[in-house]
């Protein structure tokens, strides 16, 4: 897996400094605390986790928007350490596309569709004559057609779905190898979510793209990726192929997330769902041992609260960081 990995992340840490009065350092928020994974070209992975679990920081670190504190990222054979400048950084940025959560906010309100799509090209020195042709080509790919109806429009004249398709078009206009999609559908109407995800999936297949899909909503995962990584409190706690994860969730947190999915079933009105008590922990002062232990109903006394769990692989390709699986089976 490692040899053909498009992106390989090893023990990545991103800590934000906490300061008092602007200069006294009083500690860190550990937004990413030792994340390791590989992503192959042409693969799509999903990162699932609730707000504050570090998903967005992971995206920003990969895009070079936030410098990592520690750890290693290798993208298409190039080591990235967050200190890249000039050409190397430009190369990274041309090769990683970014799709944000809020499509309206992600588009400069004072630029036309054509301008928005030409901007990344202009930044990377694509000649002006070529810009228009390439902008029109990606518009065709994301089904913003006929192009003539759209090129002179401003973002506020488009619907939410069209705006997000424009954001996707902008992310792929430089023909990147990897696209990071940070909650691309969470702010859209339920009616267009599937459409956008299928569009992203189709583009991923046709361009042989690596896609990192970040979401808090497990219900959208099945439309998308091969692999799912579950993040909790700045760490990846479980990783498995999509269907395996949905059918046999191992980590108590994953189980809780799956229970929380709201399916449009009238029966749900009568069922009181079991959700873990409490809130996600503060990342400035994470709990010792397993970070989920204060909320976990299966916690093992003494062990979970003192020692961080290591990785277990109870089924092939299905790895989990939880002491319950220390004998290799269900505990």
């Amino acid at each position, binding site marked *: 897996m490692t040899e053909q990995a498009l992106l390989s992340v090893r023990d990545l840490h991103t800590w934000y400094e906490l300061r008092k009065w602007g200069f006294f350092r009083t500690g860190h928020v550990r937004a990413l605390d030792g994340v390791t994974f590989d992503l192959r070209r042409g693969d799509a992975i999903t990162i699932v986790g609730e707000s504050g679990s570090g998903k967005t920081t992971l995206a920003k670190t990969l895009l070079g928007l936030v410098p990592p504190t520690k750890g290693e990222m290798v993208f298409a054979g190039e080591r990235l350490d967050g200190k890249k400048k000039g050409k190397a950084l430009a190369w990274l940025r041309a090769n990683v596309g970014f799709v*944000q959560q809020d499509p309206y906010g992600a588009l400069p309100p*004072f630029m036309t569709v054509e301008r928005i799509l030409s901007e990344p090209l202009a930044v990377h020195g694509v000649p002006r004559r070529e810009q228009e042709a390439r902008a029109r080509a990606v518009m065709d790919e994301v089904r913003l057609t006929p192009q003539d109806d759209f090129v002179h429009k*401003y973002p506020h004249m488009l619907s939410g779905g069209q705006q997000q398709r424009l954001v996707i078009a*902008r992310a792929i206009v430089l023909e990147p190898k990897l696209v990071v999609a940070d909650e691309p559908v969470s702010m859209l109407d339920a009616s267009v979510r599937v459409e956008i995800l299928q569009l992203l999936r189709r583009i991923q297949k046709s361009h042989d793209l690596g896609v990192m899909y970040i979401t808090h909503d497990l219900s959208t995962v099945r439309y998308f990726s091969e692999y799912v990584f579950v993040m909790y409190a700045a760490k990846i706690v479980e990783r498995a192929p999509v269907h395996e994860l949905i059918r046999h969730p191992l980590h108590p947190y994953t189980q809780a997330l799956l229970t929380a999915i709201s399916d449009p079933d009238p029966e749900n009105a009568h069922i009181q769902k079991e959700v873990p008590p409490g809130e996600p922990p503060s990342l400035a002062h994470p709990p010792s041992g397993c970070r989920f232990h204060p909320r976990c109903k299966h916690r093992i006394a003494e062990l979970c609260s003192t020692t961080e769990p290591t990785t277990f692989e109870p089924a092939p390709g299905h790895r989990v960081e939880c002491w319950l699986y220390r004998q290799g089976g269900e505990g």
Partner: protein
Amino acid sequence: MNTLLRNLRELRRYPSAILGLTIIGLLIVLSIYAVIAIPYSEAIRLWRGGPGVWDELPRNASPAWFDLFTGKSLSRTIVVDSRTEGTRTREPLGDGNVRERLILALDFRYDTFPTEMSLFSTATYETKRSKLTATWVKPDGTRVALASGRSIRSSDTYYISLDNQLRDRLPQMAAPEVALFGEFGASSPKGEWKTQPGTYELVLEADMPEAYTLESKLVVYGSVYGIAGTDNQRRDITVALLWGAPLALLFGLLAALGANTATFVLAGIGTWFGGFMDSAFQRLTQLTLLLPLLPILIMVGQLYGRSIWLILAVVILLNVFSGAYLTYRAMFLQAKEAPYIEAARAYGARHRRMIFRYLLPRIVPVLLPTFVLVVPQFVFLEASLAVLGLGDPILPTWGKLIYDARAADALYKGYYYWVLEPAILLMVTGFGFALVGFALDRIFNPRLRTM
């Protein structure tokens, strides 16, 4: 850009803005007219004045439309020049000499007396032997001898009003311009002078050799002149009122544009890079806010020069880190957090592009009302400096008019028009920009609409 235009179109919904735009439009038309009708060098020459420039204009004359308020017909200036009118006869005296006789006739039908009379003569001959004789003929045929014993000279100005010898000979020892144009009536117990309407004649006689000629110009100064009146140097105030418009607008617009744009761009740069640059710019702003603008400008005017361009440059410099910096900074801090900024960084846009293509355009619409509102502030600043005697020494501006009027004690002497005309124009200018600025503010800051 089209949001900007759409918002501007919304101005039509505010009657006050329409009024303001009309005022600004009229000022612009006035400025264009001024620059075309009186070219710059001509305006400078006229305003500098000097001999020969304003000879035919009355001193301290009110505007001609004062007629409407007094109900009387106020005297206008009458110029009779022998080169274009009047009759000339030459009577041979033998031995090659002639007696040249010029008769300058004028029709006077006003209710008030002239304020002054002067006779400007030029002759191609100079002699002390023969004299110029001038005789005034009133409509009733009464003849008064003027100018006893004036030599014929190549260029001669005879100030009839100041001829004290003449005055001694006139009835009641009245001023010449009164006695020559009026009759003393017994309409009141003490008696008073009244103007006598009709045709007057000035008969000039000079003896000289046949080859030579005499030309004379009689100017009877009125008590009113033109649209705006004249000052104590006989200058037509209209010149300064007209030229004041382009100068005021130019100064106001350039200062507002220069200072505002610089503040805006620097706020964008400072906010984008943050850290040391941002702090430095903030400290500079706080420092500038403490600096007293007017005393500094007075100092510059005293020590370095009073050219309008120098003052403009100093005003712009002192306004770069103005209070607006903090307002823009607050807006940029907010705009900097927009997701599209992050997106642009993610596709690799560099600092200059980020600032000028992404950060600044977002705030431009907010810039507009501020810009329009500060224009009159700078117009007033320039006028204030001129009133304090620190205006550009050669340019006719509204502020200079007020300065001159104050120096000549215009208000004390009752020449209200001299002060009021420029003051009203300044007020109207401020009013126009304020109306448009407030309307723009309402359009671009919708929260104000509910207040």
